[in-house]
């Protein structure tokens, strides 16, 4: 360290704890308590990156979350590296590694810097205008843009860190632990409210905690001393929960807020193991107080972006809080009194201040008079017209403003400096207020937007509300908090505050230069490299809405969401178009307020916890028998059971052959099951299914089709009459929850007069389905006393039978076309019964089959699967299932829609079978069907919905939906694929056993 930039200040930085870190490969040192930014500055490093478009050298500019330039890549580990970290927010830890990210090949020599010289060619909208055409060139452009733009690297390996979520509830949530938030917390706590206080920094106190001038006094004490006592008091207050290093990410309606707490990012990497990195709080607050403070604005003048140009408030914080000088030759450029506090801090720390340039004619406040008395040169009514120094500012050129403030006059004065502290006034942090739906109003006096109307139980206080002077901040915070909480008296009522009062104000959004605007670079948005010229260009090209101007120029669209740029952009638009700023409105601030990592958002819901999955009672058996699984809704269903090195095709062919030739067994436990009871249960079924239910006898089963009110098929399944007023309905696996909701909806809202009760019993029962020519022999072995004769136990009937103590519901129903029995037992016996079936079926080589084989077997029979062969646009008539629509019933859900003008069209898509001319060719599900291949574009007549190779038929079969399909039986059509065209013939939908003989074994 050649220069002596650290000053003697041990209050917040612990100089006994020296920390080493690496920046761009160079080992440097800082202290515990430093941010990465203050540590870099103490090493005389300002230049930390290159700008996005012009690749201009950029330095640390601020001390907070509004930082546009000091955006670094932290860490060099493939799993832990983090892009876009703001050096001003990173607490220094031992061993920290960081790199500049927006430069290539290095920060000091940047190839993209050539853009700076080409910049007349790179105006606003340049990317839109140039790289859009010709479209085929985009890939080439993209390569260069990405390579030279570069917003950091994402980690390439899985994030090893742990993240957590927690719900919190409180009476009063206070966002921001500065002086106004602390006072509000104390008032609320004294009123016995449960308070949650969030502060995004490590320490409470905001900017007042390091305020060290002799003018501000609270109750006759130095303001910072008074505040420290308040903080001690609050830390011991049982009503107040304090979360530091916690930033509010999002403020939603109904006072629902998300906050992110950093738990380990400030620790050395080697002590972070097994600790939760970040915690996301989901907060419900009865009342919210926003005390997020304000951020200083820069000023907009020619070359206002050089390293060494910083916000005046940041320069002050680096001296007073971190004990770091940002330069040895300072100049201040301001339009308001607050920068004079920086002047006092510089003076007090013995740091050279060459001059103050103030665009105002004069100021006679207490603080300015004090600076005047120190003999510091002040240039009133002057502005900076240019700056010099490529990688670090070294000179400013100053000229006098004319009367209107739109041009400069007189002779140019040159001043040396290595740090320029600028201040353009203050902007309240209203982001959270607007995120929550609040409306702003414009304050002409201070040129700021302040909170106005809100629908929520919410209050903004302090600088966030537009109070900037200490007495206003304190007294209004006390008054407003009391009113908000409906409190008569507080312990702060007699507070005595002394501070300097600003009297003269002046604001010029775009400061003039001695050069014409077209030859200057007055930056607004440092991160996106947009200048005042770009705003003017956008206006000339016809963009009027501030939202359009923002997008066209990209102003305010960086990761800082334009925290520094927005007000100037608005001001310049207002000035150029002669509009009042209040009438322009502001752009929308969206959550998150500061970027969040994905890890924080997902919390613990990663890996196997990402989504819950449901397992049947037989799941372990499937796993042990080498099943492959597929996801059906949240269920894991056995898909197929490959033996040795069988492919899926091999396994499915073997399984389906076994089911047709001897016996197969399927786990059907996932089907939705709804228990229906009540004296009107039968009437209810008549209303929800298309077919008639009145004559169904106890012990019988019936297939039903359910429509939506628009006439489209919604679900299907078999319902069994268990008793006089008792039914068991089955639904599709994926549709179970929706069917239940829909039925409840009709019962509660349309037919409350019906005496019907619905209970979901999907998880309560498990189902083993045994099918095939030998099914009867197997079932006989298990239930020795059960009469399985066709007379006693015909197809579509049900028996209740006991196996020891186990109550079994056995249904003879079939989805495969084979003779088959479904055994339903209480879920806890599911695996036992399943194993019983396997045991009994051993001599018949009983073969477990999965969903894929089930799909094949039913397709051979032309049975539909709702959701595969239907897509919410198919009526029963389209499915050629006219037989299931009762002609006698007066009404059922969807009936009226079956003869709307659209549903009776002859040329609707209808379900058909398809046979390929080459029997070994298997169609792809989803493939399009056409008639004429030569007409371009081809008319698409429909698509394949189900397709398999049938081992029983020894040929490929498919189901498809086809325009006017019913009329097209026997027609030759084409299925064009990427490399060939497949010839097909339209067929019947039933491919096997048209006479239904197999269901009798």
């Amino acid at each position, binding site marked *: 360290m050649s220069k002596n930039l650290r000053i003697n200040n041990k209050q917040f930085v612990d100089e006994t704890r020296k920390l080493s870190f690496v920046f761009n490969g160079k080992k440097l040192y800082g202290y515990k308590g430093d941010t990465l930014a203050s540590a870099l500055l103490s090493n005389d490093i300002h230049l930390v990156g290159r700008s996005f478009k012009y690749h201009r050298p950029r330095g640390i500019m601020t001390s907070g979350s509004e930082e546009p330039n000091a955006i670094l890549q932290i860490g060099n580990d493939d799993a832990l590296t983090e892009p876009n970290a703001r050096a001003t927010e990173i607490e220094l830890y031992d061993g920290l590694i960081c790199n500049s990210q927006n430069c290539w090949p290095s920060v000091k020599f940047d190839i993209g810097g050539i853009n700076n010289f080409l910049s007349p060619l790179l105006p606003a909208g340049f990317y839109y205008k140039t790289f859009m055409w010709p479209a085929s060139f985009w890939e080439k452009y993209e390569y260069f843009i990405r390579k030279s733009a570069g917003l950091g690297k994402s980690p390439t390996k899985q994030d090893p860190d742990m993240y957590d979520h927690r719900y919190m509830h409180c009476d009063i949530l206070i966002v921001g632990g500065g002086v106004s938030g602390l006072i509000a917390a104390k008032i609320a706590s004294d009123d016995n409210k449960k308070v949650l206080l969030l502060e995004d920094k490590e320490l409470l106190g905001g900017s007042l905690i390091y305020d060290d001038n002799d003018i501000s006094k609270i109750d006759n004490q130095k303001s910072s001393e008074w505040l420290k006592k308040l903080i001690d008091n609050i830390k011991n207050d049982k009503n107040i929960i304090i979360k530091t290093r916690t930033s509010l990410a999002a403020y939603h309606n*109904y006072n629902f807020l998300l906050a992110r707490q950093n738990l380990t990012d400030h620790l050395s990497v080697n002590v972070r193991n097994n600790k939760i990195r970040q915690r996301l709080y989901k907060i*419900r607050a009865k009342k919210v107080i926003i005390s997020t403070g304000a951020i200083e604005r820069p000023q907009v003048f020619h070359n206002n972006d050089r390293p060494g140009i910083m916000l005046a408030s940041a320069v002050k914080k680096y001296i007073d809080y971190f004990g770091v000088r940002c330069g040895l030759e300072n100049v201040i450029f301001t339009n308001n009194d607050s920068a004079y506090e920086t002047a006092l801090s510089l003076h007090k720390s013995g740091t050279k201040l060459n001059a103050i340039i103030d665009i105002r004619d004069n100021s006679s406040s207490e603080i300015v008079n004090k600076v005047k008395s120190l003999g510091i040169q002040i240039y009133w009514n002057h502005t900076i017209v240019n700056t010099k120094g490529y990688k670090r500012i070294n000179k400013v050129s100053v000229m006098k403003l004319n009367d209107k403030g739109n041009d400069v006059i007189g002779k140019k004065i040159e001043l040396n400096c290595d740090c320029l502290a600028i201040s353009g006034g203050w902007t309240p942090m209203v982001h959270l207020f607007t995120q929550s739906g609040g409306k702003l109003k414009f304050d002409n006096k201070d040129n700021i937007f302040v909170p106005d109307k809100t629908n929520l139980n919410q209050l903004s206080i302090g600088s966030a509300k537009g109070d900037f002077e200490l007495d206003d901040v304190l007294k209004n915070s006390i008054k407003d908090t009391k009113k908000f909480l409906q409190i008569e008296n507080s312990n702060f009522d007699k507070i005595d505050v002394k501070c300097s009062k600003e009297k003269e104000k002046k604001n010029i959004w775009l400061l003039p230069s001695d050069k014409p605007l077209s030859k200057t670079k007055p930056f607004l948005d440092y991160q996106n490299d947009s200048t005042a010229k770009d705003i003017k260009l956008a206006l000339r090209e016809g963009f009027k809405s501030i939202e359009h101007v923002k997008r066209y120029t990209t102003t305010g669209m960086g990761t800082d969401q334009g925290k520094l740029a927005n007000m100037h952009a608005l001001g310049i638009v207002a000035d150029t178009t002669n509009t009042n700023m209040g009438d322009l409105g502001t752009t929308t601030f969206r959550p998150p307020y500061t970027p969040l990592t994905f890890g924080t958002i997902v919390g613990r819901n990663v890996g196997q916890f990402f989504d819950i999955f449901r397992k049947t009672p037989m799941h372990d058996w499937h796993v042990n028998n080498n099943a492959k699984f597929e996801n059906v809704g949240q269920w894991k269903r056995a898909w197929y059971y490959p033996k040795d090195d069988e492919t899926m095709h091999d396994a499915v062919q073997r399984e389906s052959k076994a089911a047709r030739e001897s016996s197969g067994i399927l786990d059907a436990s996932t089907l939705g099951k709804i228990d229906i009871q009540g004296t009107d249960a039968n009437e209810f079924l008549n209303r929800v299914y298309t077919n008639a239910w009145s004559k169904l006898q106890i012990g019988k089963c019936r297939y039903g089709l359910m429509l939506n*009110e*628009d006439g489209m098929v919604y679900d299907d399944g078999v319902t069994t009459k268990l008793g006089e007023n008792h039914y068991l309905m089955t639904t599709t696996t994926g549709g179970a929850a929706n069917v239940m*909701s829909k039925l409840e909806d009709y019962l509660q*809202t*349309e037919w*409350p007069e019906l005496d019907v009760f619905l209970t979901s019993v999907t998880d309560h029962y498990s189902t083993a389905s045994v099918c095939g020519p030998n099914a009867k022999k197997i079932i006989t072995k298990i239930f020795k006393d059960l009469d399985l004769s066709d007379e006693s136990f015909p197809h579509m009937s049900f028996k209740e039978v006991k196996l020891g103590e186990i109550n079994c519901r056995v249904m003879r129903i079939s989805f495969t076309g084979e003779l088959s029995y479904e055994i339903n037992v209480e879920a806890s016996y599911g695996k036992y019964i399943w194993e019983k079936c396997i045991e009994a079926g051993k001599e018949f080589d009983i073969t477990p089959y999965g969903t894929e084989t089930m799909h094949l077997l039913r397709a051979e029979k032309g049975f539909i699967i709702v959701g595969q062969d239907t897509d919410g646009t198919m009526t029963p008539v389209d499915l050629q299932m006219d037989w299931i629509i009762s002609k006698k019933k007066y009404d059922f859900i969807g009936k009226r829609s079956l003869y*709307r003008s659209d549903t009776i069209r002859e040329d609707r898509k209808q379900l058909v079978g398809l046979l390929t001319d080459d029997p070994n060719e298997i169609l792809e599900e989803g493939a399009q069907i056409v008639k004429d291949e030569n007409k371009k574009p081809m008319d698409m007549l429909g698509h394949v919905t189900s397709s398999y190779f049938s081992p029983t038929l020894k040929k490929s079969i498919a189901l498809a939906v086809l325009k006017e399909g019913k009329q097209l039986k026997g027609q030759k059509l084409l299925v064009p694929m990427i490399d060939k065209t497949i010839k097909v013939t339209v067929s019947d939908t039933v491919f096997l056993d048209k006479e239904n003989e197999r269901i009798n074994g």
Partner: protein
Amino acid sequence: MFLINCPYCGERDQSEFVSGGEAHIVRPKQPTELNDDQWAEYLFMRKNIKGIQFERWNHAHGCRKWFNVARDTSNDKIEKIYKIGEQPPKL
């Protein structure tokens, strides 16, 4: 994320509920008597207003009961919650 005061369970987070669209649309008792236009009016036509809208909500992850909500769509403020079968309040 709203808080919804279920008339059967009390105040709960919005994630426990599903919205069922506009309220007070009664299924015609004799659908077959309606022509296509009248049926389409029932089937498809829904209001989408800025201001107070009457909606059906279901406490899907709770008591499973349906109820009515008068919600201001401009700010999501719930003005009134009332049971199925009750008349919409005058607001």
